[in-house]
């Protein structure tokens, strides 16, 4: 309970800082600009919570603390889907008559994430095998990133479209609109709730597939729905924030060290903690940039996340857990 209260407090502080940070001074802020900052804050909260809980689901599904949407290629798959939707909506505006842009992107992101997860599950059969999951995830990330780079090359002379794709890849929640936040909210909220409901099942699944099945877990259904909800969360997060990595790795592992492996309380804490982490990173992205503009949010999370990944991997190896 204390950890959850602490995460809530951190989120409140980060949220206040986010609302007060921007090129226009606080005293010159009108209600329109304040609303803009609120939309940005909500986007950060939703994306951070979604990424962190997607990390919890993946770590439970693969029984592997290194599994996270960015390490396993799921975020890259979602990003490829959203990039295709981005390009499609600019180059073929007729697409938007079928589905509005605010809905097209999360739908495409979901399809991309599900594709990546499907490949991962199909090939990494021995889900306790940590090395194969991480290696395969890296390969999938590289594959989807390469496809994304090909898309970028197609945007060659359309310099603004190219810039949009690069900005998206670097990550950031500054292009979030009220509508995109409104679309993401039910997806993230329902997915968080569903993930929490699967929490006890994931606890039992820590024993391994065979033992879990003997204890009454429908392992096929668990895998299916954990995959679906992970894809929904990853897609929503990528749609709102682009290529933001490592949130799903850092936040669950830090909180698990204090809370233990129980999934239900971990999911609640990670939703709050992930939201706080990403909101704080967004504030840093705006504040630390010299002059006008901001550092890409994905760069901030990677600067924190990559050293964490190395430290964590080394520590787990030394403890014989990997």
């Amino acid at each position: 309970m204390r950890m959850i209260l602490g995460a809530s407090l951190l989120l409140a502080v980060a949220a206040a800082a986010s609302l007060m940070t921007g090129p226009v001074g606080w005293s010159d802020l009108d209600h329109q600009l304040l609303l803009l900052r609120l939309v940005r804050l909500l986007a950060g909260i939703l994306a951070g919570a979604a990424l962190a809980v997607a990390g919890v689901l993946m770590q439970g599904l693969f029984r592997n603390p290194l599994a996270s949407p960015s390490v396993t290629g799921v975020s890259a798959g979602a990003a490829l889907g959203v990039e295709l939707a981005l390009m499609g909506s600019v180059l073929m505006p007729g697409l938007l008559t079928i589905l509005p842009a605010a809905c097209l992107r999360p739908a495409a992101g979901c399809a991309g994430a599900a594709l990546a997860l499907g490949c991962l599950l199909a090939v990494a059969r021995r889900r306790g095998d940590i090395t194969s999951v991480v290696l395969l995830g890296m390969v999938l990330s590289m594959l989807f990133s390469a496809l994304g780079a090909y898309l970028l090359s197609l945007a060659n002379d359309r310099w603004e479209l190219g810039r949009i794709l690069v900005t998206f890849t670097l990550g950031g929640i500054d292009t979030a609109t009220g509508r995109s936040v409104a679309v993401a909210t039910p997806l993230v909220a329902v997915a968080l709730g569903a993930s929490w409901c699967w929490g006890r099942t994931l606890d039992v699944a820590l024993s391994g597939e065979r033992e879990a099945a003997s204890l009454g877990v429908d392992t096929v259904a668990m895998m299916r729905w954990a995959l679906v909800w992970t894809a929904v969360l990853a897609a929503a997060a990528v749609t709102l924030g682009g290529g933001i990595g490592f949130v799903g790795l850092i936040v669950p592992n830090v909180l698990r060290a204090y809370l233990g492996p129980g999934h239900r309380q971990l999911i609640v804490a990670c939703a709050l903690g992930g939201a706080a982490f990403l909101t704080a990173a967004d504030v840093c992205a705006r504040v630390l940039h010299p002059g006008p503009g901001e550092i890409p949010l994905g760069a901030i999370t990677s600067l924190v996340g990559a050293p964490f990944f190395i430290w964590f991997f080394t520590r787990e190896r030394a403890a014989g857990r990997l």
Partner: protein
Amino acid sequence: MNAPGPVLTIEALSVVRAGREVLHGISLSLRAGQVQVLIGPNGSGKSSLAMAACGLLPPAAGAVTVGGVAITRLAPRMRARLVAYVPQRSELGSGLSVEQVVAMGRFAHDGAWGRDASHHQAIREALMQVDALELARRPFTELSGGETQRVLIARALATSASILILDEPSSALDVAHRLGILRLLRRLAGAGKAVLVALHDLTEATQLADQVVLLHAGRILAQGSPQEVISPGNVRSAYGVTLLPGAGYGYALDGC
């Protein structure tokens, strides 16, 4: 005294794993209050039979029925309430306490939102039955081999299943811990559980079992009382060794 009807029946069961038939034509039945022991050399199919009996391996032919219903037709939660499985080793990692591990056994009884009313009581009773109540708060991965096995059995008991299936619960344990496990199984059978256990040690099988099933290359070589099955001829056929009566270490199981 009339023996109760079989609670678990296996009829002409065949199982294929990784394209290879590991069990063929297996038929046996298990009754409440009975300890039935599976013996056989390595690779004879003991573990496969134990898993198939729990419904963890699908039959290629034949059927496993519990209370007259094919086990493969039961929903996973219902199956877990009827048949409990204790693996040889657990894949559980660190971070869980003994109580949390045993609580997993109540999963089949919990609702989607809340826990079953008898949740805590069942966990407590299960730990008491295996004399592990004092271990409740200890981290699971810090237990000794014998303690680990007792906790895994407690988890199986927490399911309140009437059928217990164990896969070599006493292997890799010292003699004192092995005796303790076997004594516990005898006690559970005495309390009305149906126990199917795979063992390596023939002496333990002789002293523990009401019925013995000798497996060889996926088939039943012999089936019956310990005295009938563990004979020099059967042992030579199955293991390729000669059984010398009275040779080696013998030890008694108190209270069996």
